[in-house]
């Protein structure tokens, strides 16, 4: 069956009646919905949306936790020919102000006529909706008119989904994906796992549904195969990681993806008692993506959970990004993960990868998935040979149409069918090794954060020089995950007390604004942070200099220095005129 849109998957249901969605709550009770029932529920939502006047192409933000209503809304919106935009629900006990402003900004950005939300979420959304002013306001599914409506036929070029790659008030990046792109990605994913007459794969996921790895990585493939998919809310997983592994065991999951930090959480926050009776031997593929894969965590996870049947060859590092719908490279399945060591200086200073017994260990994220091509290019866009670090460009059938309504931002990354991922790495023996990022986005715990979001939090703290703050993340060697640094130029007139309190005040501000703990606050004299010729802060350069121990202020320009410099240049000019050699 050649599906052209996600709705074709809904049309073809009925071949495997035991397929569906299973929701697991904190008491490990399960609620089950067959795919056919999910379709019926979505049709009801479609009718309600059509009755409200929702039209083909309308963008509809959805704010739901991991529960059946998310799917009623998601598929209901698509059946009505509109485009779902999943947004994240409020963080528990988090600072509501930031959340509401960020959500309002994202709603505005999509020019949505209507927002759909869970009843509990709707109660606190008032301010966000008032700010964004969608024509039809915010409705729960229960508030939609109960009318039967016609399904709107869309085509492969129509948008299927808009996904914000990082939620931010400053510069939301809404990735617009067509049906064609998502179908292409799902077909790529499905090609890695074959069902047979006697054996059907089943996935277990705690990943958020507003994130590509959860939605496009788990949900849509399960729908396309009419498979069973077991879902756990991300907030449940983070507070009780054992739920994930216990569900994998109980429901004989064969596939489950997660970011690196999740495997780390399992190491530190699951007791042996919680694993009693668990059997992970059916878990054939433990995908590891969405952030850098650290050998420290992967090895320790494999070692610890072998006791409960975890197969070492299941751990599969992968690489992808929402601008490509999801997967770009996959390591070989059913094979132990590969890492190599490289000479540190050659890598950081000369951007050349030379294997060395005692070098920096980098995990391979594998080869391009079927249909994708990869290039490593230098700053000028010229192809680099193997073993040379450069920017990773990709081409494939599931690339985004662009950033929603933003041709300029799109043109900056998408050129002649190639996408500049903003990531840095090199190829060796056909495998991709990632070394860092050229783009400024901060990736921690598998989530993207815009550095502006964090920088803005500390503006206005006494002693902070306005507009002179850089936030950046980096991965120390042997670390279990990324760390967050804040480089802060201090104001010229900052007093000693303000300076003494500054690091702590910055940490508190970032904690409150972004819920993130800063690992390193570096106070710098005014003028230290590197800038472009037009005065823009160069974040990647600031990080590079700091890691090299070279983040220092420029030499002060004094009268004597000026005179010496002029004398030197005058002397050189004189020599040139008289044709004399430099002495």
């Amino acid at each position: 069956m050649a599906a052209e849109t996600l709705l074709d998957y809904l049309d073809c249901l009925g071949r495997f009646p035991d397929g569906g969605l299973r929701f697991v709550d904190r008491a490990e009770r399960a609620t089950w919905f067959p795919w056919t029932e999910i379709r019926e529920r979505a049709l009801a939502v479609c009718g309600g949306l059509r009755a409200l006047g929702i039209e083909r192409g309308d963008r509809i933000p959805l704010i739901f936790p991991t529960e059946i209503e998310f799917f009623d809304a998601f598929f209901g919106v698509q059946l009505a020919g509109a485009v779902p935009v999943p947004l994240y629900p409020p963080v528990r006990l988090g600072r509501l102000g930031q959340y509401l402003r960020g959500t309002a900004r994202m709603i505005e950005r999509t020019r949505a006529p209507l927002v759909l939300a869970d009843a509990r979420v709707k109660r606190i959304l008032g301010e966000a909706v008032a700010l964004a002013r969608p024509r039809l306001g915010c409705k729960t599914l229960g508030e939609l008119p109960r009318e039967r409506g016609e399904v709107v036929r869309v085509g492969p070029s129509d948008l299927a989904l808009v996904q914000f790659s990082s939620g931010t008030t400053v510069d939301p990046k809404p990735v617009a994906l067509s049906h064609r792109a998502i179908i292409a990605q799902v077909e790529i994913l499905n090609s890695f796992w074959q069902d047979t007459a006697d054996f059907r794969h089943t996935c277990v996921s705690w990943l958020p549904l507003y994130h590509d790895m959860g939605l496009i990585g788990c949900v849509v493939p399960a729908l396309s195969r009419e498979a069973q998919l077991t879902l756990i809310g991300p907030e449940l997983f983070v507070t009780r990681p054992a739920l994930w592994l216990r569900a994998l065991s109980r429901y004989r999951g064969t596939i489950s993806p997660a970011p690196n930090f999740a495997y780390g959480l399992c190491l530190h926050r699951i007791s042996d008692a919680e694993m009693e009776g668990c059997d992970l031997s059916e878990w054939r593929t433990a995908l590891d993506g969405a952030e850098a894969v650290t050998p420290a965590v992967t090895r320790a996870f494999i070692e610890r959970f072998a006791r409960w049947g975890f197969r070492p060859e299941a751990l599969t590092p992968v690489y992808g990004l929402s601008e490509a719908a999801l997967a770009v490279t996959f390591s070989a399945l059913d094979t132990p993960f590969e890492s190599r060591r490289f000479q540190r200086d050659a890598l950081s200073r000369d951007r050349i990868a030379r294997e060395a017994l005692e070098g920096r260990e980098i995990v391979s994220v594998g080869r391009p998935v079927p249909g994708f091509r990869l290039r490593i290019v230098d700053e000028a866009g010229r192809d680099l040979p193997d073993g040379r670090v450069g920017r990773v460009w990709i081409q494939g059938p599931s690339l985004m149409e662009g950033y929603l309504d933003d041709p300029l931002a799109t043109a900056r990354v998408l050129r002649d069918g190639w996408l500049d991922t903003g990531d840095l790495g090199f190829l060796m023996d056909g495998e991709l090794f990632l070394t860092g990022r050229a783009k400024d986005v901060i990736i921690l715990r598998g989530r993207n954060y815009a550095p502006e979001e964090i920088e803005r939090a500390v503006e206005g703290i006494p002693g902070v020089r306005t507009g002179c703050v850089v936030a950046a993340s980096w991965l120390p060697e042997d670390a279990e995950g990324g760390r967050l640094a804040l480089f802060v130029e201090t104001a010229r007139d900052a007093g000693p007390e303000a300076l003494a309190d500054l690091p702590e005040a910055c940490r508190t501000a970032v904690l409150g604004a972004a819920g993130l703990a800063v690992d390193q606050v570096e106070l710098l004299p005014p003028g230290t942070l590197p800038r472009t010729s037009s005065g823009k802060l160069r974040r990647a350069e600031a990080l590079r200099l700091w890691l090299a121990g070279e983040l220092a202020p420029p030499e002060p320009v004094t009268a004597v220095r000026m005179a010496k410099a002029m004398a030197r240049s005058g002397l050189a000019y004189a020599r040139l005129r008289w044709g004399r050699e430099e002495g």
Partner: protein
Amino acid sequence: MSDDMIILQGISEVARLHLGWQGGDLSPEMRLVEDLRLDSVRLMTLAAEVENRFRIFLDEADELAIETVADLVAVVRRKLGR
């Protein structure tokens, strides 16, 4: 012992067991972010484990006004009163 004290002790126990809190009992005026230094993961953990401990359910509207330990105690007391 007053109800509030019992609740406060319960929350302090949660902080010790699940948040790595090394101090004694929490004091009511402590702010969750500024004083307890809770990032988003640990805020989630606090909410979930307080729910588990007291067998209550906190929803988004309940959590709206919780900035200090005292706020949290008040919400728990209200929920237990049902």
